[in-house]
């Protein structure tokens, strides 16, 4: 139970801080959230700066071009960048955090050489094509079909909840390469393909969320030809290929968000003090309780990171406990924000109001809380398979 940093870790933190102090003031202004090309340029520019300073692929293995940093170093990196107000990973999210690691783990040498360096340099942007309208919680129900035709697959179907699709170069795509039969379980027959987003037959349609913005898109695929060489892993083995990365987590998935929670909470307290609501003990105690919850999220993160460091990786199920609590606290935080704002919580021009809308997705995205509880019950607690 040691929460202090080693000398190496302190050193890493201080060098990072010094670098951030130097470069952040020189960054260009943040782009308009609705201007996708500008966002891409901004995010990729930041990634290039990280790359040039030696911070790109911090948590990737050295063989893949990464820095092979420990989970604690990665934690420090995410903590410090968030606290310094550095840009978020943004458009590089899928490349750095999922597609890249998948290619690093399962790709051929040629595939690694082709796709990994541009991700680290911020030259190419990836998006994710997993979910489908009829395959949400039940991802294995995906129907997008890929039929072999010579050296290509011909792919038809549609994907949903794809971020940055408008500006991505590549899409990590899950497709069905063998039909589901009584003998073929649904998790077989799925393959992982790297789809070039400029291929003929790819249509991207922005998907407007309840927050009024179009952070996601639908991707329609109409007989799109994808070279067989773009398949990572064996044919029909795509489920395993994907889950290797999805289920491997080092406890760092939400570091920035947890730091942000604390910042929002302190800001809420200041606002409440300014507008007089701080004098209401009901609200004040509610904020106090949220402070305990935010502390807990941070400590849980440190716990998971330490366990990952000790054991070489936290199975994804460990993250379910964290995510259940995190989603709940995050939503309660914005409910408290509404309480602080009073009637002004109806003014979407006020801070937190749109964030509150966005936070409604927390108990749904990346595995609903219901699915997470199933995972905890069955895989951690060992209860019999339900349903």
């Amino acid at each position: 139970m040691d929460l202090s940093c080693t000398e190496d870790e302190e050193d890493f933190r201080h060098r990072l801080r010094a670098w951030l102090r130097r470069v952040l003031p020189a960054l260009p202004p943040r782009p308009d959230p609705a201007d996708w090309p500008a966002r891409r340029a901004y995010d990729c520019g930041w990634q290039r700066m990280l790359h040039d300073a030696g911070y790109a692929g911090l948590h990737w293995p050295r063989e893949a071009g990464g820095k092979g940093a420990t989970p604690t170093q990665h934690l420090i990196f995410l903590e410090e960048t968030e606290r310094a107000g550095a840009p978020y990973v943004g458009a590089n999210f899928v490349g750095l955090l999922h597609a890249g690691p998948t290619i690093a783990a399962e790709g051929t040498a040629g595939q690694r050489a082709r796709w990994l360096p541009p991700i680290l340099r911020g030259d190419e942007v990836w998006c994710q094509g997993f979910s489908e309208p009829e395959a949400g919680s039940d991802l294995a129900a995906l129907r997008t079909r890929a039929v072999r035709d010579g050296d290509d697959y011909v792919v038809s179907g549609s994907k949903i909840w794809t971020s940055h699709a408008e500006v991505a170069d590549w899409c990590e795509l899950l497709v069905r390469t063998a039909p589901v039969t009584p003998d073929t379980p649904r998790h077989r027959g799925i393959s992982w393909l790297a789809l070039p987003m400029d291929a003929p037959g790819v249509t991207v349609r922005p998907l407007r969320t309840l927050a009024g913005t179009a952070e996601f898109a639908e991707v329609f695929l109409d007989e799109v030809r994808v070279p067989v060489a773009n398949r990572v892993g064996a044919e029909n083995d795509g489920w395993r290929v994907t889950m290797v990365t999805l289920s491997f987590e080092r406890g760092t998935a939400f570091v920035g968000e947890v730091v942000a929670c604390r910042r929002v909470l302190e800001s809420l307290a200041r606002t409440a003090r300014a507008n007089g609501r701080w004098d209401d003990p009901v609200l004040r105690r509610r904020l106090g309780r949220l402070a305990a919850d935010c502390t807990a999220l941070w400590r849980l993160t440190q716990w998971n990171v330490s366990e990952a460091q000790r054991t070489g990786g936290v199975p994804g199920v460990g993250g379910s406990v964290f995510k259940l609590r995190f989603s709940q606290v995050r939503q309660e935080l914005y409910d408290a924000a509404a309480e602080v704002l009073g009637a002004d919580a109806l003014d979407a021009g006020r801070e937190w109001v749109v964030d509150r809308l966005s936070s409604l997705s927390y108990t749904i995205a990346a595995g609903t809380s219901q699915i997470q509880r199933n995972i905890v019950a069955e895989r951690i607690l060992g209860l019999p398979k339900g349903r």
Partner: protein
Amino acid sequence: MDFSLTEDQRALRAGMRELMERRFPRARLRAVVDAEGGGGAAAGEGAGTGAGAVDRGLWRELGAAGFFALRLPEAAGGVGLGLPEAVLAFEEAGRALLPGPLAATHLAAGLAATGAPVAGVPVAGAAVAGAAEGEAVVTALDTAGAGHGGAVLVEHLASADAVLVLGDGDAGIRTAKEIGSSAEAVRSVDPATPLHRVPGGVAPAAAGERSSGEQGAGAGRGTAARLRREAALLTAAQQLGSAVRTVETAVAHARERVQFGRAIGAFQAVQHLCASMLVRAETARSVVYAAAVTEDPGDIAAAVLLADEAAVRNARDCLQVHGGMGFTWEADVHLHLKRAWVRAEQWQTAAAAEEELAAGLMSTGARCL
């Protein structure tokens, strides 16, 4: 005792539902919402500039159907019914997510009918006189809802002809133009409810006019307090309608949406979400209806608390049942949630309702039957 709806009440409710479905079908709701600049909560301005404007044609039809004149005496051209019937009508409006300052116009119609200076409320010309017929759109400014800096949010100000101003004790009517001159449009979280921020210090009556308070402190105080209570109850009725509707929506989705080879409504987790939603809605119904009968301030506070809770939490649970689909702009779930948030901020806050009920515990009981 027979708490059930009478045959006439059932007929009224069915009529109102039919009216809403015919005149304000889903397509029309979506037109209001989607027209709104394409921006929604996070987009440009929108409020007060046409987007979300009250549909005068629909307003007149509501007037023709007696929605605003429901409680006016038949002699005064009204329908001659009471608060229970008004609650049923407002429940249906809430169910349909009908936008507009329904409660304020309904109350203003009541004031107009009695005519100035009866009940001590001066009438600002024809505006309020037309409220009963749906010719006038009347919104409300509740000075008790003043937040930090004393500003108040007013819905549909740009569409309104007149504003019912509820002061500390007195109430009055001012023209929308007057109030609007100092108002600032706000980017409303609810795309169907434009909001303006009006600075503090607005008086129920313009200088030189008489407000109800000047008739004598007792009557004046009573008038504003009564109007606020009735508005709170009618708003609670809309929350109830929304809460009932989101149960139905969630159940319909749960029956149709298939995941893991079966309708998700066969999963206990989803079943139990839906069951809890129904419990909230039916609980709210019982107190809203009872408050309409008794008009007791404690009963109304209970109705406000439970109806607000039912509308907000049911909308959230409905969203959860819908999963990703519920997070889209296309689904109607978010419209219920946003409207429920708007309504929950109006007339009586949860804190005020709880304090009122707590105070009621100190006066000796006997609240039963």
